[in-house]
């Protein structure tokens, strides 16, 4: 029973830590499936988190915070698109530029607005997304096995967690069952085929990066107004890159990508649990080593375990009519 509860607790933490990854990885997928590398996820998440925390603080409502985050990340996506799609710039450079820009800009504006060393003021309960308790969760809590799964694991998360996991099948449906998805996948593989079919390549790619912006905005908002209660400088701490890694690990497909995010979230949750624990034969593992574990595993998994990840064929290549 003891172990079972521990497992439930770790899985519960897994859901919470993988939520921003799932949203950001899906964001990356929409952009990259259309042929635009989105290394800017990290910076966009930061921008979204900052916009969400600031607006939620001023207006006292998390929904406005979420909308502000999405608006901010759509703007950043359009900036990325302007550089990469309209002006056919280097997509990696544009992405990194946005990351560096947002790391500095969020801190700068934060200090200017709130004078708290780059942080935003702590949000009260009403300005954050609160856990949603499923009906009957308390009554079920004492039922063995099913009880904890229902009341602890499934119930009691904030709305963005549920949105993230509903976004996975929805993204799959959009990608594989709609006209938009067909054209989006086609434009990432062979933009020439899309152009000769009478569809605008530029417009398709812009629409894809806007989808990307919406999803990564939610991911940023989750960090500052759902999981956390304020914006902290560089609070994404590489989650954008991990999400990108999960997307590659998931071979640019929604469900495998979600499982990759869950795996990374799980490693993170386990790492938190292992802090200060005496392992037999090893002794107390240094905190830093534990914290590095997800990243080390990311490298190992990416290097050896996914086989050949086949990227969309035109990924990273601006569309130029050949001559």
């Amino acid at each position, binding site marked *: 029973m003891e172990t079972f509860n521990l497992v439930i607790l770790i899985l519960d933490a897994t859901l919470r830590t993988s939520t921003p990854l799932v949203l950001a990885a899906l964001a990356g997928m929409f952009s990259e499936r259309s042929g635009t590398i989105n290394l800017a996820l990290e910076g966009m998440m930061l921008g979204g988190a900052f916009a969400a925390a600031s607006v939620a603080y001023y207006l006292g409502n998390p929904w406005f915070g979420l909308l502000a985050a999405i608006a901010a990340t759509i703007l950043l996506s359009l900036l990325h698109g302007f550089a990469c799609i309209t002006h056919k710039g280097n997509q990696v450079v544009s992405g990194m530029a946005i990351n560096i820009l947002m790391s500095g800009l969020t801190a700068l504006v934060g200090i200017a607005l709130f004078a708290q060393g780059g942080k935003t003021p702590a949000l009260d309960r009403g300005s954050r997304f609160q856990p949603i308790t499923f009906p009957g969760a308390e009554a079920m809590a004492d039922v063995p096995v099913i009880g904890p799964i229902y009341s602890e694991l499934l119930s009691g998360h904030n709305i963005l967690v549920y949105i993230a996991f509903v976004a996975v099948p929805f993204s799959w449906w959009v990608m594989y069952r709609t*006209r938009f998805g067909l054209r989006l996948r086609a434009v990432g593989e062979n933009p020439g085929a899309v152009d000769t079919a*009478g569809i605008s390549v530029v417009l398709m790619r812009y629409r894809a990066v806007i989808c990307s912006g919406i999803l990564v905005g939610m991911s940023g908002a989750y960090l500052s107004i759902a999981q956390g209660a304020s914006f902290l400088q560089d609070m994404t701490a590489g989650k954008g890159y991990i999400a990108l890694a999960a997307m590659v690990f998931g071979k640019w497909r929604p469900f495998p990508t979600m499982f990759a995010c869950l795996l990374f979230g799980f490693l993170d949750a386990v790492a938190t649990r292992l802090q200060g624990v005496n392992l037999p034969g090893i002794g107390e593992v240094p905190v830093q080593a534990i914290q590095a574990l997800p990243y080390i595993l990311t490298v190992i998994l990416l290097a050896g375990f996914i086989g050949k990840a086949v990227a969309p064929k035109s990924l990273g290549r601006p569309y130029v009519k050949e001559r």
Partner: protein
Amino acid sequence: MSESIHTAHGTGKTGTVPPAIELRGIDKRFGAVHANKSIDLRIEKGTIHGIVGENGAGKSTLMSILYGFYQADAGTIHVDGKLCNIRGSEDAIAVGIGMVHQHFMLVEPFSVLENVILGVEGGAVLRDGVDRARHELKRLEQEYSLNIDPDAIVGDLSVGLQQRVEILKALYRGAEILILDEPTGVLTPQEADHLFRILRTLKEQGKTVVLITHKLREIMAATDTVSVMRQGAMVADRKTVETSPEELSELMVGRKVLLHIEKGPAKPADVVLAVENLCVDNAQGVRRVKNASFLVHAGEIVGIAGVSGNGQSELLEALAGIRVVSEGQVFLNGQDVTPGHGVDAAQLRKRGVAHVPEDRHRMGMVTAFTAKEAAILGYDDDPAYQRNLLLDWEAIRTTTQHLMDEFDVRPADPDLKAANFSGGNQQKLVLAREIMRDPALLLVGQPTRGVDIGAIEFIHKRLVAMRDAGKAVLLVSVELDEIMSLSDRILVMCDGVIVGEVAGGMANERALGLMMAGVAPEQAHAEAGQ
């Protein structure tokens, strides 16, 4: 109905049916290149019209303008007698023009069905349109005998079938006018024949077909009328029955050319290259060359025929030392030089193996280099080019100038960027670099790909001269004409296996075509003999 049109198309102005396509004064420049010079063209409804010209004559540009891929600087387009403003592919599709591009515009991981409906899905959710498309596709397949599995993944199909998907795509969009840009470049002769049968069916159904090619044989075999382009201008319109390949090639080049190469009998001497049970795998571990064994003697040209992608490229690259050999051995003048086991491309060069790679832009030269830099690639450590620790640019320039004069590279400017030479002159420069080293064995891949007719003639003559000078030449080409006219012996490859050998003089195109498709030699000869 088609009868009346047929009689009408000859005179052009009689009859009440307006021409399917009429171009007036189409003009297009790309920077300094004047790709289309005030082109007038009239194509009658229900005919197969050929457009011939050398590479770079402006055929593809003209058709891309018609399909809305580029915009003309001046001129008008009339379709079925109506003035059309075609600004993009969607406009072209709307007036019933479909195009099969030289490089297929297909999404490889998609199914045939998905490729066909892309752009005309018939609803925001795919399900509704897909069922309708499936029925429509079935109908088109039956009507034009274009059998294909709608659920097959396009990337898994052969190029012939991929081309069929492209044709279906155009027909599905309701194309009345079908443009095909160099459609047979990647097909076996049999596949090409099948394509021409399909085109004739299309014509019988009242469609208009425009065939762009530089192969005169196809023009003669498949078209009703033909237009010739040279250097961006339309120089002639002919009825196919009233012209000849000789006249057309003269019009294309502007002077008479030799279509057949004058060469005496080969005088094979000692064995230079001996290949025994050679096997080569690609990066994915798939065996691309399977147990190849053959000899090349001094003083002969051995040609390797095959549809591209059947292992010839890998064989050539392995012999040049750029690919690791998995099994088997290679002997050069009796010495073991099996690549990958301590022998690499540089050592092979030192031992007298020269290599003109198939893709000159990817492997033969660096297009961003100047001609003199390109002319020493691979031989840059030659002491003749060194002065103290630096390169001796004077010596390099002199050598390059000599190569350019010897091989008629134009313009003969060693300081010009390689990219600024035409394909033919680039190839001549690469050939000069390799031949002037006086190698014992010359490996040549696609020596005349993307090369104009004048340069082809020159290159062919130089290859024969190499042979007559007592060198061994191994020639890989997908152009059957080239293989047949140059080779003293022809090896045919299919799926990595050398399926047979034919003496050069005895070669029969149909038999070679069948062997390229994997038919055993005896059977191929028997079938071709009928």
